[in-house]
């Protein structure tokens, strides 16, 4: 009995135990596989995929952001250039317009001066014509008065001078 114990522990040879252990182990393995291992591995795999996806999408988002930033910077640059060009052209336009306005004003002034001169001329001519007419009628009047009064040469002279003076004052 002692030898038996030392060699085989506390049990005699019991083949059924062996078979039972084998069956129990296999059943336990199958149960673990079905109820614990498979779902857990599936979950871990899902998590792995999820994390990988998240990393991928984060990388993609970052890339997109960089692209967008670049685009915006490009747009800003273009906008600045455009503004500068606009200001430049506006300045040029202003310069041109000023030149034009000055030109127009100058020619307008010239024209006004010209027309004024013409008007003065006209007026002068008119005046001369009127004077001429008046001189004629005055002459007639003087003549008639001379005739009426039968003036002597000295008186006539004096009279004419008087009338001429009068005419000059009238103007």
């Amino acid at each position, binding site marked *: 009995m002692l030898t038996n114990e030392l060699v085989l522990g506390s049990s005699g040879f019991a083949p*059924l135990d062996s078979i039972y252990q084998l069956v129990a182990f296999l059943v336990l393995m199958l149960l673990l596989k079905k109820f614990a*291992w498979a779902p857990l591995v599936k979950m871990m795999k899902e*998590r792995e995929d999820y994390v990988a996806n998240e990393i991928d999408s984060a990388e993609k988002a970052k890339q997109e952001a960089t692209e967008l930033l670049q685009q915006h910077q490009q747009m800003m640059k273009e906008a600045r250039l455009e503004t500068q060009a606009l200001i430049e052209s506006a300045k040029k336009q202003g310069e041109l317009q000023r030149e034009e306005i000055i030109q127009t004003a100058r020619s307008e002034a010239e024209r006004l001066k010209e027309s004024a001169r013409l008007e003065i001329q006209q007026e002068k001519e008119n005046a001369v014509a009127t004077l001429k007419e008046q001189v004629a009628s005055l002459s007639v009047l003087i003549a008639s008065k001379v005739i009426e009064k039968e003036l002597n040469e000295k008186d006539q002279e004096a009279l004419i001078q008087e009338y001429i003076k009068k005419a000059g004052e009238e103007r």
Partner: protein
Amino acid sequence: MNHEAPIREIFGLHYNPSNILMITVSSLIVFLIAVLCTRSLQMRPKGAQNFLEWVLDFVKGIINSNLDWKNGAKFHILALTLIMYIFVSNMLGLPFAVVIDHELWWKSPTADPLITMTLAVMVVALSHFYGVKLNGTKQYGRGYLEPMKFMFPLKIIEEFSNTLTLGLRLYGNIFAGETLLALLVSLGTGSIVGGILGFPLMIVWQGFSIFVGAIQAFIFTMLTMVYMAHKVSHDH
């Protein structure tokens, strides 16, 4: 301490109902742990799920240190069951032993050489099976002639000694631990002085037995994968 095993007979075959009981209890505990840990699986793991995932990763690490994962993935569940079952079995005999009529009923199932040898033979047989299945009979047979032809008899002996050491190492460690525990108990219950002396020793030895039980479960699984790798991988 000299307890006998309760041997019974059915259909002319002997069996040990204590073993049957303890195997069932161990299997049930392992199954309960596994199911409780995976009851509510979540993408963001917490608590129990973390624990079982850690065990899974640990076992994966054991396999990966011997095989590449392409071949090793199919042994994942085997290794997981082995390490959990053996660890729980080793722990069962530590807190107490139940003795009825000088027959030992509650003990570690792994404190029985027949049980450990059954596991060892199963594992080695599986390694031969997968060796043939994955590499073909020719490659499998050539493994016995490498690296030299005259090594053939040694290789044959190696297979038997591997099996024997795998099973008996586990049995020896656990049985010795339980025997010493039983001795310490008889010391403690023998006299007052013995009780004062025995109590701290008992605590220390139980702590050490937990360590030994964990280590033995790890070693058994590790060696299983080593033998498996030996048979399965082409270049070793």
